[in-house]
């Protein structure tokens, strides 16, 4: 079924970003970029979301929250790491309190570069993640929807 591609619901979480990427994520919803054209909705609720869009690096305090949000999302799901910090820790990677990119904690499917990441790049990243979402959905269906959920690596 191709409905995942047509109705991706998104959950945005700011791990420890400087806000630059976050306001660009929000900008994607607004008239100039208008991602609702693709059926994308920013749900704000992990239980309703298909795509976890994370900005910012992980630190000790939000590590658990990132894991939690990911765990609460029902399968199939994908993770998009938006911005330099989410990819690797960015300019903050040397700091004592930053663990590194999102992939230190949960598996990431799409990396979107930029500091701050541009809205066009975010949209591109989300659209690319849809193909992965679709593949995961097909796989889930093949296993009869009863297989083991993916384990975070």
């Amino acid at each position: 079924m191709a409905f995942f591609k047509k109705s991706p619901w998104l959950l945005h979480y700011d791990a420890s970003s400087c806000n630059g990427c976050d306001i660009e994520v929000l900008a994607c919803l607004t008239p100039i970029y208008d991602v609702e054209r693709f059926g994308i909705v920013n749900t704000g609720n992990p239980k309703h979301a298909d795509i976890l869009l994370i900005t910012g690096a992980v630190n000790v305090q939000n590590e658990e929250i990132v894991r939690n949000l990911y765990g609460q999302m029902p399968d199939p799901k994908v993770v998009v790491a938006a911005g330099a910090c989410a990819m690797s820790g960015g300019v903050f990677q040397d700091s004592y309190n930053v663990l590194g990119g999102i992939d230190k904690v949960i598996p990431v499917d799409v990396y979107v570069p930029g500091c701050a990441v541009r809205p066009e790049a975010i949209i591109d990243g989300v659209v690319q993640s849809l193909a992965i979402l679709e593949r995961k959905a097909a796989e889930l269906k093949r296993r009869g929807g009863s297989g083991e959920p993916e384990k975070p690596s």
Partner: protein
Amino acid sequence: MGQRTIIPFGPQHPVLPEPIHLDLVMEDEKVVEAIPSIGFIHRGLEKMAEKKDFQEMAYIAERICGICSFIHSMGYCQAIEALLKLEIPKRAEYLRVIWSEMSRIHSHLLWLGLTADAFGFESLFMHSWRVREKLLDLIEETSGGRVIFGVCKVGGVRRDVDAETLRRALEALAALEAEYREIAGVFSRDASVKRRMTGIGVLPKEDARALGAVGPTLRGSGVAWDARRLQYAVYGELDWAPITEEAGDCQARCLVRIREIFQSFDLIRQAAGKISDGPVAVKVPGNPRGEYFARLEQPRGEVVYYVKGNGTKNLQRFRVRTPTFANLPPLLKILQGCELSDVPVIVLTIDPCISCAER
């Protein structure tokens, strides 16, 4: 007495794009107490100054926050320039003022949108951001960046804006101001907006002073303190006065910001009219030594940078006191006794920038 429950507000919460956690102790729908826990975005940025070159640090300072980005780097540079006793070219000062007023407009428009969103007025959110997007185009055209400008450096600015670009930018700004006027009208006159903001979250003048509020939060309570009064950069040569409102409620804080946007349009026009030709940067002589507090006015309020150098290229101590950090105690005070449905609006009216507050 109703039963007490605790409702967690954040860290992941749709109203705030940023993680802050408030434990709201509730009696039915009334908030008895709000207990914050922070640190979700603490990156230990101040400590990084000890490892980075002081000139490189200007770009890290800009990333304290992606909304007040330009003014952060400007404040850091002013603090270092004070230590170096460095006089920077007039043209650079004017450009810095133009860019910082542009970021004030962009930040306030962003705030207006988020606030509209918080009380469920989606179309107002969309229109505020539609106008803001046009301003971002101007910022990109003049500085090269959308949210992180990357133009401020110790000793001046990294790029000049030619006369033709500046002229076009001014034209575009005039059109923008006309569009903004409509949105401002809705915020100040719409009945349902008024109902959600008037008399909500009142911060009396004495409390605002005693708890150390800054920025529109302070000015909304009738205190005319605006760090631009220190006449840093070229604010002394421009004609303006701090904007205040007396009521101290959410509506007052909102009106302060609405009027400040008009003021910023005016300041940009004034600065563009007075700007003189010349270089935009000077060479940096040596390394900083000594200590200094530099104060600036950000969209969210007064920000303080403390720098201490010992003559090496690394600072000994770098400290930022951001406006949101100062506005947290007043926020806790005005949350007491409010309704749950007013929490998002009240939290937003201090214009919280958590990544600023935690650095």
